[in-house]
């Protein structure tokens, strides 16, 4: 067999052409991003694309002469360039206005895509056209989306802190809210309510989730299948379904024996629910998380530990309490942390149940939470917006501190226990 690599193309020596191409492409990427942000720049897109096309064509002719390989990349780049120019120029003015939004979006997307492709090829040539250079030249494709996404998250956090941090004061945090009293304009109720929701949800979902997880992984059978199916459904359930169902239950609880437990005093609006009811429905979000954590923990239990316990004559209950649960406890607790973060931030489930929290924060009073504060300001109550609207960013920052704090603790603990649960 003769060597297949004998007549492969010689390596390109010159670096100026690809370096220039790389520069133009980088500029094009930045330009595309700016075009995304400021739509009116699209008028400049035409000239830019024309220059880009000319530059790319010129460079590539040069490169091709040097390399004597026919490059499919050239055709694709050229075609994309042409399409972008046509899209941006040919679009008549008379079309519905929103079409122009698409127009600049498409133009920006094409410019960015095109420039990333050019950048990749240029880097490939710059690095010497070797196969490893090819692998390394793909970095822009991976880095660019990551950078854009991280910038977006950064902007969100930045804007929140910019607007929220100056508003936070001890007075805001330590004063409860009462619509009837102008002196009481704080968010203490909401903070306490958030913690009350997390506490009650944990109390409800911990035993239920752990029980379901243990039953599924230890006993099996038809019922375990049903439980597994329903936790899967809960995981797939669109949250808004839970929200409306919670509201429905609160309405049905009026004038029944459940009134004091699920729905607060009837003088408050029909449909409002207590912390207990809100937590019961929020726990439907947390139960699947805990169930999975329990199952994972139990599955990673070393075989000999369990069999050893049963072999020395321990009863099933003893094994459960002294071997299974202690082993999977860290896993369950970290799962619970994640669930609590979700509970603190979720509005959709409790959106119709919550009020202002001015009747106190106990399991049987009207629910409220920090996340719901934002909803109230933005959608529900005009007078509330008048009095508390200025604090919406401060509340967001406090909410974010709680949820991000919980997720960070979760990450730290999980890394700590990762070794233990890796094998199964």
């Amino acid at each position, binding site marked *: 067999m003769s060597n297949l690599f004998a007549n492969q193309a010689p390596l390109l020596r010159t670096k100026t052409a690809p370096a220039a191409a790389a520069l133009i492409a980088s500029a094009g990427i930045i330009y595309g991003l700016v075009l995304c942000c400021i739509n009116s720049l699209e008028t400049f897109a035409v000239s830019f694309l024309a220059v880009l096309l000319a530059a790319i064509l010129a460079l590539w002719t040069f490169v091709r002469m040097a390399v004597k390989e026919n490059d499919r990349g050239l055709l694709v780049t050229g075609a994309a360039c042409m399409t972008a120019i046509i899209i941006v120029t040919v679009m008549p003015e008379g079309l519905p206005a929103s079409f122009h939004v698409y127009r600049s979006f498409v133009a920006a997307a094409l410019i960015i895509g095109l420039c990333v492709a050019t950048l990749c090829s240029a880097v490939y040539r710059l690095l010497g056209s070797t196969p490893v250079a090819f692998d390394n030249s793909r970095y822009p494709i991976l880095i660019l989306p990551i950078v854009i996404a991280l910038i977006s998250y950064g902007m969100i956090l930045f804007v929140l802190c910019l607007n929220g941090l100056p508003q936070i004061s001890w007075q805001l945090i330590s004063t409860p809210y009462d619509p009837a009293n102008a002196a009481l304009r704080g968010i203490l109720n909401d903070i306490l309510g958030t913690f009350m929701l997390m506490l009650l949800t944990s109390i409800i979902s911990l035993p239920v989730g752990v029980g*379901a997880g243990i039953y599924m992984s230890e006993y099996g059978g038809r019922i375990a299948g049903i439980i597994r199916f329903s936790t899967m459904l809960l995981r797939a359930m669109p949250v808004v379904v839970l929200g409306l169902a919670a509201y429905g239950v609160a309405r049905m609880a009026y004038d029944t024996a459940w009134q004091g437990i699920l729905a607060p005093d009837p003088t408050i609006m029909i449909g409002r629910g207590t912390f207990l009811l809100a937590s019961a429905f929020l726990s439907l979000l947390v139960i699947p998380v805990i169930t999975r954590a329990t199952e994972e923990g139990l599955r990673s239990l070393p075989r000999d530990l369990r069999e050893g316990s049963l072999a020395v004559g321990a009863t099933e209950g003893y094994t459960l309490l002294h071997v299974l649960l202690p082993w999977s406890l860290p896993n369950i607790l970290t799962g619970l942390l994640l669930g609590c973060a979700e509970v603190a931030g979720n*509005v*959709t489930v409790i959106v119709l149940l919550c009020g202002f929290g001015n009747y106190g924060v106990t399991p049987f009073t009207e629910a409220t939470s920090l996340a719901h504060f934002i909803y109230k300001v933005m959608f529900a109550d005009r007078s509330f917006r008048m009095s508390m609207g200025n604090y*919406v960013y401060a509340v967001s920052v406090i909410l974010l501190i709680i949820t991000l704090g919980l997720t960070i603790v979760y990450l730290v603990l999980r890394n700590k226990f990762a070794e233990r649960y890796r094998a199964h």
Partner: protein
Amino acid sequence: MRRSWPRALSFMLGIIPVLLLLLVIGVAVWFSSLTFYRVGWGELFSFYYQNYRQGGWWEFGLLPSIMGTLYVVLLALAISLPVSLAIAVYASEYASGAVGRVLRTILGTLAGIPPIIYGLTSFIFLGFFVSPSFTRVKTVVDLAAPPLHPILDQQKSAILGGIMLALMIIPFMAPLIDEAIRNVPARLKEASLALGAGKWHTIGHIILPHALPGIIGACALGCFKAMGDLIIVAFTCRSNGQLPQPWWDVSNLSPLTGTIGWLSGILYPALLGKNDLTLSVSYFSTLVLLGMALIVLGLATLLQRWFRKKYTA
């Protein structure tokens, strides 16, 4: 069968989620019963949606909203899937150990941002896609003095909704894909590299196909989250439930959740507790949404099973 207390106890606890699930579905069916005999199926699954708030006359065609949900969710996936793939591939194949770990930690933390925060700050991204009436105006958003009202109705757009939903689901999808990539057997990767295939070729031809079940699972999760979200949609999409004018202007669509929010009074508190029929239709819409989620779940499970079978002996 021997009965022991752990078994009995875990059975009693484990059956609770099943009962709660039945309760949820039962309540939704109970409240939507009014819809079943006051609004016909033909009207529900038509394109005609009208609300005349004062006159109290309604028409409930849900198809525009269903279209809106499809559009918004697909847009969110179209944005979040490439980004999540890039993050996962970069973290597990390209980045050095430390950089990968930092990236994973950042994403893990971002998963804690509540949806309402994305909604509240969505005005930042208004500049990306100004709505029709602002088309020719350069939108410079004043970050230090944000609007105290939700984005104006004319400024809302399903594209903005798709972007914000994508940002919300990326921190959930990327770790799943990352895990799927790391679970690809090392022997296949080594075999590919030993045959002189480059890293990029190996990723495209061996690693990603093998991680496909995991990627599908991640997409399904993203779908469920984006489908059920009401609060981001409320901030970013027009929630009037009507077919957009002109019909192809998809940025004007309202997803099902927006319509639910409107009809149930979540986004239009004046309606809260006043109109039983609109409330009932919103319960019916949640059932429709649940059905869509079930279809996605079934499809995802089927595809996952199919690909697993294909890639293991």
